[in-house]
């Protein structure tokens, strides 16, 4: 009975989303304040009923209600409670409900934090989000009902959550990624609302910016969590595989990054309007593309859900209507978007334009590499795959050029900057970066490699230009501390995020070129050396976990003879399905990770295993944390709140001026 209530609640949310997707938008078009004012309560209603629905599904998982199909498919009575609860998003239906619930959450946030915007605009934004909600719930009800029952004979026990998912990463990665993904729907809705109203001004950009920044920050964390999880769970020691399902979040992120920058220009200078709108549409399309790829069964990957062609067609339909419709609207409205200000060939506008072009080209190249095999297969029936070398060959040089401009951009001025001024500013910084790039890897790692030099030099370039810029901006203040206080939060946010790129660059550069690994067969007592580290196999023992049995090896680790903590890699067999799974053991460190994966047992208690040393790998995720913090700090700039206050007063005025016409 209870699961049916969940479905009933989902249907109620569906009905409310129909109203939300239509009435406020019509109201805005006709100037009907009553209908526009329905937007907020309806958005709250959709949120509440989706919330009830997802809570009931969670309850079914927690109470082991195996008469519900997806509970039986994704859970098991032996599963620890934290995985029972999160098994909800371990399959297609539940994760899509989570996705839709996230959208409703963003919708609620918009309806709460939009007091400063005119109601006409808010109702359009919520209306567009309501339409998306409508499409998503319709999709669930029509093709993938999470509350489907197994009648008349439910199984006695569930067939277990995929063992690869029984991990902390699974608890945090999908919700964070979805939240970031869906956040771009908000920015998209802002863009569409602006197109509908025909008023694309600086105010629109100012309203969108905090939302774009926060979504971008959350998406950054979501992708980083996925990378971190893959790194320690999948056991191949990599942190990015150019997997066709990893790529759409990256594409969205690249468009989102371009959007965050382009919004800045639109807000401050009133130019690039149509370009910014296009980027908002593209970022949103990227997120839909991700859903389509994972859920259509087009791909073979760790992420792919079991496939059902009707789902693929349905999502393709949503994708087509949403993207096609918004592009059509864009084409109709684009001529209205005249840019008002001119700018010189060397100016901050141009540097941001270069940033945008580089980001969009890299997004396009990832997109091509991801979709080409599918298109090729559809056309010729031949199966092909495109390997990581393709992506590295395109992506890496583009990012290097981007980083070069990243140093100069923040120093340049709006409208026009003199080239000699810029050269004068960066000449010494450039030389210093080169010196650091050559010397630092030599000191730290006692090795020379061109790639390490390039990445360290680029990282130094970012850090030094930031330092130089801060020095310049505080130079004419009474004291350095006063100068620092005079800089805005959005400035700090930007520099923080840029510094994150530097940290990540060091991680990527040094891990990619100085990592070492060895696969060996070790009998008890034998050891293997890797660089200055030595790993000695002490022996293995059997042990039992809550829902698995395992063989656990004890590895004694030493560095130049000095002991380090022991490592205990495991090889588990999950009881419900009999699936084997390797649990790697990691000794994580700020400057290096050591890790071991266990293979299989051979004669005389010997085991095959792979040992890895990965210098600076943590810096990759540390950099993402910096970037996400930067995005959040920038969104918290009091400028937005102050303007919000001013807008609030304006909104009141417009509202009072409109009232007579309504009555």
């Amino acid at each position, binding site marked *: 009975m209870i699961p049916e209530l969940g479905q009933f609640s989902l249907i109620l949310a569906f009905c409310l989303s129909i109203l939300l997707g239509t009435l406020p938008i019509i109201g805005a078009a006709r100037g009907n304040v009553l209908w526009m004012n329905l937007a907020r309560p309806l958005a709250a209603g959709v949120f509440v009923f989706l919330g009830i629905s997802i809570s009931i599904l969670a309850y079914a998982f927690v109470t082991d209600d195996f008469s519900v199909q997806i509970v039986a498919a994704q859970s098991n009575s032996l599963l620890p409670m934290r995985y029972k609860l999160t098994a909800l998003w371990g399959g297609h239906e539940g994760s899509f409900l989570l996705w839709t619930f996230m959208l409703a959450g963003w919708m609620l946030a918009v309806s709460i934090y939009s007091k400063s915007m005119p109601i006409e605009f808010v109702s359009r934004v919520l209306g567009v989000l309501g339409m998306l909600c409508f499409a998503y719930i319709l999709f669930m009800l029509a093709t993938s009902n999470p509350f489907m029952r197994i009648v008349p004979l439910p199984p006695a026990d569930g067939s277990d959550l*995929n063992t*690869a998912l029984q991990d902390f990463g699974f608890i945090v990665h999908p919700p964070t990624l979805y939240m970031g993904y869906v956040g771009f729907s908000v920015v998209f809705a802002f863009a569409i609302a602006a197109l509908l109203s025909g008023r694309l001004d600086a105010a629109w950009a100012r309203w969108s910016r905090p939302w774009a920044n926060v979504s971008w920050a959350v998406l950054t964390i979501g992708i980083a969590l996925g990378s971190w999880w893959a790194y320690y769970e999948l056991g191949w020691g990599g942190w990015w595989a150019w997997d066709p399902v990893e790529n759409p979040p990256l594409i969205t992120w690249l468009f989102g990054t371009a959007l965050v920058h382009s919004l800045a220009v639109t807000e401050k200078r009133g130019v690039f309007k149509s370009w910014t709108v296009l980027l908002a549409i593209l970022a949103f399309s990227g997120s839909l593309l991700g859903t389509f790829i994972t859920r259509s069964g087009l*791909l*073979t990957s*760790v992420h*792919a859900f*079991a496939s059902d062609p009707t789902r693929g067609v349905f999502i393709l339909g949503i994708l087509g209507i949403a993207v096609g419709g918004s592009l059509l609207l864009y084409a109709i409205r684009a001529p209205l978007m005249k840019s008002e200000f001119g700018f010189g060939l060397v100016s901050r506008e141009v540097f941001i334009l270069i940033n945008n*072009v580089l980001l969009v*080209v890299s997004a*396009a*190249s990832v997109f*091509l*590499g991801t979709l*080409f095999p599918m298109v090729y297969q559809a056309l010729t029936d*031949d*199966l*092909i*795959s*495109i*390997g990581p*070398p*393709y992506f590295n*060959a*395109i992506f890496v040089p583009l990012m290097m050029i981007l980083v070069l401009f990243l140093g100069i951009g923040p120093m340049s001025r709006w409208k026009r900057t003199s080239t000699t001024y810029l050269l004068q500013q960066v000449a010494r910084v450039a030389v210093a970066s080169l010196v650091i790039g050559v010397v630092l890897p030599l000191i730290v790692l006692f090795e020379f490699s061109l790639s390490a030099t390039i990445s360290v030099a680029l990282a130094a370039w970012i850090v030094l230009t930031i330092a130089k810029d801060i020095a310049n901006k505080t130079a004419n203040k009474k004291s350095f501390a006063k100068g620092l206080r005079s800089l805005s939060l959005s400035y700090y946010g930007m520099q923080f995020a840029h510094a994150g790129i530097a940290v990540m660059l060091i991680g990527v550069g040094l891990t990619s070129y100085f990592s070492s690994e060895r*696969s*060996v*067969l070790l009998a008890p007592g034998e050891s293997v050396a890797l660089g200055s580290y030595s790993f000695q196999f002490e022996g293995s023992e059997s042990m039992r976990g809550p829902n698995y049995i395992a063989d656990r090896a004890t590895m004694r680790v030493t560095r130049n003879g000095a002991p380090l903590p022991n490592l205990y890699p495991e090889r588990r067999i999950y009881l419900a*399905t009999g*699936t*084997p*799974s*390797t649990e790697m053991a990691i000794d994580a460190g700020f400057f290096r990770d050591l890790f071991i*994966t266990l*293979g*299989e047992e*051979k*004669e005389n208690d010997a085991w*095959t*295993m*792979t040992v890895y040393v990965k210098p600076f790998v943590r810096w990759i995720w540390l950099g993402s944390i910096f970037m996400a913090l930067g995005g959040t700090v920038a969104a918290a700039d009091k400028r937005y709140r102050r303007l919000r206050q001013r807008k609030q007063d304006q909104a009141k005025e417009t509202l009072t001026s409109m009232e007579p016409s309504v009555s």
Partner: protein
Amino acid sequence: MKPHRRKKLGIILFIAAGLSVSIGLILYAMSQNINLFYTPTQVAQGEVGVGQQIRIGGMVKEGSVVSASDSLLVRFETTDYVHAVPIEYEGILPDLFREGQGIVAEGTVDSAGVFHASRVLAKHDENYMSQEVKAALDAAGVDTSGHPTSLLPPES
């Protein structure tokens, strides 16, 4: 032509040229990195040149897995139930590698017809069949346990 129009045209031409160069480079990089997929039958019939980087997909033949007791070398055969191709792999096989399961391997074929795998992939979900393996079995007209999919025997 008015000066601002000429400036605009210049910018457009510049962007178009940049775009075509980058698309050209992208396509070139892509063509260098495409791994074609072959079925065991195609490999056994010598359709693949020696040393060419390819992917092969099929079922792991029952009773074919031999792993050396003193090294990481593993030998097994992958089959579409028409032809089997011997594969050599040095390393640790994925968790779900098992006899009678579908796998995809990346690597090259040597002159003796042995496939040297640099990577072996096995699916995480037992019920799920990788596209490559499915294509190989479909081409051979058999299901996952080697029974003909149609009632009529394959024509060849």
